């Protein structure tokens, strides 16, 4: 990143959220890079940027699309790069119809399921399955032309109209980006939750990827798209996930009716028949995982105990689970260092859900709000809940902190870093490792005499971890299992060196294939701590990066197709003719001896068949995807839809919101009606939530600390002077903020850092809300109302991340009502706006004939999946998201089309049929009823499809950053030399 010539920070407040990471931006700036911050607010990031471009929250695709449009029309794209490394020349199915022609729908929309059947998005292929291309890029069905057509109406005028960005600012942005791209220069994008926390989150990132591919900024020093993540090991917790849809190493959880057999499953993961890249060895990865978990019980005969794995059949994310809780469908809940009572959208719904549990285990450092909601939560105050009526059993178990246990965190650049244990945990505090180990022991002990086959997976599980003298599990033993080891043979028990050693015959075990090598040679590679000034700029001996300690992904693209560097200035990895190898400043992320000119006849067949100019080696076809034939639920090309609750009409299409977004139609999750609909005027302003440097998420690790609390002691909202004048708010006085779900109070910070925007001739006021405070909890130094209570739950269909950057609401001076009056107060607004569960939740708003046309287009090809599939993240670059199904015949034809994505196959059927509480409760109880009335099906999102992309938003591209590390060391050394 420090190598970039221009850095666009959009949807991220990097300086505030990642101050230490921001040093590389500072460094780039010091070297003359231009920093542009595109954000609704003027933040601390903006303060040292060269330029602030205020933007209306949620309109990012319009801006980026307009940049793409202009890059294409003015021919400022990096022609050679685009031709060689992207799928620009590929021809797309004749049946494909663009949103431009269907008023906001792509072809293949199924109005019954509100989802796409994506066969029409696939490549045209020849009889061997090899994709057809048009090198001239002229064919109207070529990706390049489709792109041009798609973005042709994304103009500077549109940007001004919809984003509120002045034409001059747009020009500045455009010039900055294009002038700083090409052979000699690179531009980098950085984003964070400002993009992901939208109902279009994944598509935001896709749009930037397309722009970056067009400009040739992917896989090159100082280029790329950098994800900035908020938690110590948020990367690790998707690599080795506690996520419902993933197993370690981005292997999917098997889906009922889709992965009924191991072969089905492996076919979906990746086989040599479907892949060029490393996913071709999917069977070995899956087998090794099963061996690691079930040891001797996993044999060739029982498909390595594949049947021990439970099946999913829909979305089982946290918000869906909350709904199930409200329906009494869940007994027990473990909270591990999480505080959903404050940190999750629609906090009230979360707390009400907890009150329906039979028991709940909270593991944390202090008594957070989620541990004490039953005695001092906001609903106790309003009388919606009464402590003496709550049946939930609560367990609070003190957790060990990061100094009291050994283990690894995986940071945002995939670097796995070991932490040594410093001290013993105090009192009864223990690590999660010990807790789960002991819980597993206890459960197994109680079941040991069971002959119930359902208990076999628990009893057969390998669970014999060594403990030290203090009775604590040796984390290194777990690392070894994650790394993998040989079974049998002369290296029996020895750790694997890399994932290429994994086999599909049960002779290796490995808990997470991408981590293979972290314990190579019996050495804990993550614990390596060679000081940075004792090694080269890549710092390869500091900890360990997956995969295979490769710090930078796809760096093949930093050289021209012929293997020479694009330019001296941006030299990074290149082909050395003399040795016949790739070489450079980093470990080449490419088969080391695959010559640039090498060509393979086969379209697939694993890494051995990569062409010499297929830099994106984890993509099924080795190319960067301008157009995503698969992998995205909501469209192959990003399209602008208005956010849920937007008060602005979509200027491009009749389709107001994303037709595939996941909504929850519930009385306790009401939405504002949306632009133009009566009632929307009740909630005229836009709330957008964010973080502050001084606090950490829901505050569990900051509001209990005086040093941090004093720096940002009180919940506040940021508003413009104009809005303050309009509403009559006094600086540093109180304001009450009301959304369709809740009302909170906050202090008022009137600041010019908030700019009213003119959108479609109307002034749009945005209100910034930090979300770190909560009510209740014990021992917190500071408390305040939680901004997340205002949020509704509407999700990105790809990754199920909720939209918290755009909430409609209103603001008024003074404090909010207390007690039961608060409920009445909110209801008054809801009545006034005439809200119902249907409000704002209309999925499709285009004319019926367009829907029909779209649906029809899809059905035309319902027979097959795409010829070209597998592949991974449409977003582009990260390995790991290859779950897209689309196997031939994989679908069991349950009503959705055969080539639907794997998990969507069952989405409706699996959704509610197993709900324990079928009965619809009559809506008779006035208040508490709101949480759980209505049909249970109302609660579930309208399409609970499971997508492969869970990690898309969170495991984004990091290569630029890693590369920056190298450069920064160089810089550092220079500085020290001075």
């Amino acid at each position, binding site marked *: 990143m420090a190598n970039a010539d221009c850095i666009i920070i959009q949807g991220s407040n990097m300086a505030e959220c990642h101050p230490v990471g921001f040093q590389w931006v500072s460094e780039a700036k010091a070297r003359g890079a231009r920093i542009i911050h595109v954000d609704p607010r003027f933040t601390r990031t903006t303060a040292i940027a060269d330029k602030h471009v205020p933007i209306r929250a949620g309109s990012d695709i319009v801006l980026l699309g307009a940049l793409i449009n202009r890059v294409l029309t003015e021919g400022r794209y990096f022609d050679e790069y685009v031709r060689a490394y992207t799928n620009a020349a590929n021809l797309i199915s004749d049946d494909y119809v663009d949103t431009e022609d269907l008023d906001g729908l792509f072809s293949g929309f199924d109005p019954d399921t509100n989802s796409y059947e994506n066969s029409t998005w696939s490549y045209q292929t020849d009889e061997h399955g090899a994709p057809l291309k048009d090198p001239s890029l002229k064919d109207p069905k070529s990706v390049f032309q489709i792109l041009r057509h798609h973005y042709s109406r994304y103009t500077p005028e549109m940007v001004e109209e919809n984003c509120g960005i002045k034409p001059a600012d747009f020009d500045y942005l455009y010039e900055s980006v294009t002038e700083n791209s090409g052979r000699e220069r690179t531009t980098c994008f950085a984003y964070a939750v400002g993009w992901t926390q939208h109902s279009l989150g994944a598509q935001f990132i896709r749009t930037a990827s397309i722009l970056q591919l067009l400009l040739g900024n992917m896989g090159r020093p100082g280029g790329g798209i950098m994800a900035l993540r908020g938690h110590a090991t948020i990367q690790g917790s998707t690599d080795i996930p*506690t996520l419902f849809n993933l197993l370690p190493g981005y292997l999917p959880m098997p889906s009922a009716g889709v992965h009924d057999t191991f072969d089905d499953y492996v076919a979906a993961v990746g086989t040599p028949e479907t892949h060029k890249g490393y996913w071709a060895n999917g069977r070995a990865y899956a087998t090794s995982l099963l061996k690691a978990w079930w040891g001797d019980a996993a044999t060739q005969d029982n498909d390595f105990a594949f049947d021990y794995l439970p099946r999913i*059949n829909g979305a089982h994310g946290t918000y869906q689970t909350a709904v199930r809780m409200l329906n009494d469908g*869940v007994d027990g809940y473990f909270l591990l260092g999480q505080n959903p009572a404050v940190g999750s959208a629609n906090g009230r719904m979360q707390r009400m859900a907890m009150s329906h549990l039979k*028991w709940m285990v909270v593991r944390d450092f202090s008594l957070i709000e989620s541990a004490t909601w039953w005695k001092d939560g906001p609903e106790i105050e309003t009388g919606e809940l009464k402590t003496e009526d709550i049946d939930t059993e609560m367990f609070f*178990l003190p957790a060990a902190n990061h100094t009291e246990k050994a283990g690894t*965190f995986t940071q945002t650049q995939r670097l796995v870093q070991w932490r040594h244990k410093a001290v013993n945990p105090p009192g009864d505090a223990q690590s999660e490792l010990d807790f789960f180990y002991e819980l597993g022991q206890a459960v197994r002990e109680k079941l040991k005499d069971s002959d119930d086959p*359902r208990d076999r997976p628990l009893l057969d599980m390998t669970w014999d971890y060594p403990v030290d003298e203090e009775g604590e599990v040796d984390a290194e033993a777990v690392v070894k299992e994650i790394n993998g080891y040989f079974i049998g043979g002369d290296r029996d028990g020895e750790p694997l060196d890399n994932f290429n050693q994994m086999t599909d015959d049960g002779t290796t075990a490995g808990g997470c294939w991408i981590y293979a090598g972290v314990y190579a040679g019996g050495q804990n590679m993550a614990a390596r701590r060679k000081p940075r000034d004792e090694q080269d700029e890549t710092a390869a001996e500091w900890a360990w990066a997956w995969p295979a300690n490769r710090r930078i992904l796809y760096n093949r693209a930093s050289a021209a197709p012929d293997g020479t560097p694009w330019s001296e200035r941006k030299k990074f990895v290149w082909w050395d003719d003399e040795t016949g190898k790739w070489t450079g400043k980093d470990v080449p992320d490419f088969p080391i001896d695959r010559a640039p000119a090498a060509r393979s006849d086969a379209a697939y067949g694993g890494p051995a068949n990569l062409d010499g100019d297929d830099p994106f080696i984890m993509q099924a076809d080795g190319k960067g995807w301008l157009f995503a034939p698969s992998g995205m639920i909501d469209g192959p090309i990003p399209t602008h839809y208005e956010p849920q609750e937007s008060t602005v009409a979509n200027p491009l299409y009749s389709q107001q919101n994303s037709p595939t977004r996941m909504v929850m139609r519930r009385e306790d999750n009401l939405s504002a009606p949306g632009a133009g609909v009566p009632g929307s005027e009740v909630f005229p302003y836009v709330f957008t939530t964010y973080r502050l440097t001084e606090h950490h998420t829901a505050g569990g690790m900051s509001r*209990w600390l005086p040093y941090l609390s004093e720096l940002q002691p009180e919940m506040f909202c940021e508003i413009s002077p104009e809005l303050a004048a309009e509403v009559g708010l006094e600086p540093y006085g109180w304001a009450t903020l009301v959304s369709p779900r809740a009302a909170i109070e906050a202090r008022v910070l009137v600041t010019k850092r908030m700019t009213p925007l003119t959108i479609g001739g109307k002034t749009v006021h945005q209100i910034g809300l930090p979300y770190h405070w909560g009510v209740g909890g014990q*021992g917190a130094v500071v408390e305040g109302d939680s901004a997340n209570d205002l949020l509704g739950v509407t999700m990105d269909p790809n990754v199920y991340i909720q939209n918290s950057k755009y909430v409609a609401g209103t603001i008024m001076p003074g404090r909010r009502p207390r007690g039961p009056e608060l409920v009445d107060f909110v209801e008054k607004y809801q009545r006034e706006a005439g809200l119902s569960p249907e409000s704002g939740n209309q999925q499709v708003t285009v004319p019926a004939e367009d829907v029909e046309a779209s649906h029809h287009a899809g059905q035309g090809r319902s027979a097959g999946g795409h010829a070209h599939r597998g592949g991974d993240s449409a977003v582009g670059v990260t390995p790991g998201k290859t779950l897209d199904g689309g196997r031939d015949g994989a679908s069991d034809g349950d009503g959705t089309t055969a080539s639907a994505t794997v998990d969507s196959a069952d989405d409706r059927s699996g959704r509610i049929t*197993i709900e324990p509480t079928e009965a619809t409760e009559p809506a008779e109880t006035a208040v508490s009823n709101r949480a759980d009335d209505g049909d249970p099906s109302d609660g579930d999102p309208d399409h609970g499809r499971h997508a492969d992309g869970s990690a898309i938003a969170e495991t984004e591209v990091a290569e630029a950053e890693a590369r920056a590390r190298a450069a920064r060391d160089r810089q550092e050394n220079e500085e020290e030399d001075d």
Partner: protein
Amino acid sequence: MARFSFLEWPVLRQLRTSDKTGRGESVVSQQTRDTTPRTVTADKVVQSVCPYCAVGCGQKIFVKDDKVVQIEGDPDSPISRGRLCPKGAASEQLVNAPGRVTDVLYRAPKAKDWTKIDLPTAIDMIADRFIEARRNHWEDFDDKGHPLRRTMGIASLGGATIDNEENYLAKKLYTAAGAIQIENQARI
């Protein structure tokens, strides 16, 4: 100034040394002379990683008498070069937080407050409930007869500051138990 020694009387030292104005070395107290930072007196220094955001800044943990006495940035780290943000810099307070709870607490249904219980009892109780919840909401097949082999009775939400190893064990145990509603901060 534990014990007063006349010769060490700064007035005399003023006369003795070049520091006639009494603003420099002549007024130094014994305690000042003995100044030693606690980074030096620590029993051990352990390399660690900041628990807050995902940048992964290196930390050095200074331990004395099995207590963390200081946490500061690790200058060896190529990621952070010894720097920390305010949260990272406050880690020591996080570790030794006054508001930290170290007892296992239990709240019975309808109870108005917590009671203390011991850890083994708690784990035993949780194990019982775990097994019961698992059975109560077990599902063998979906409505089309596809195998599910899972339980819907148990849900989990994990933070993203949980170690990889911990996540691994948790996922393993949950999956073996058939629990699927496992979620993570990564999606929030």
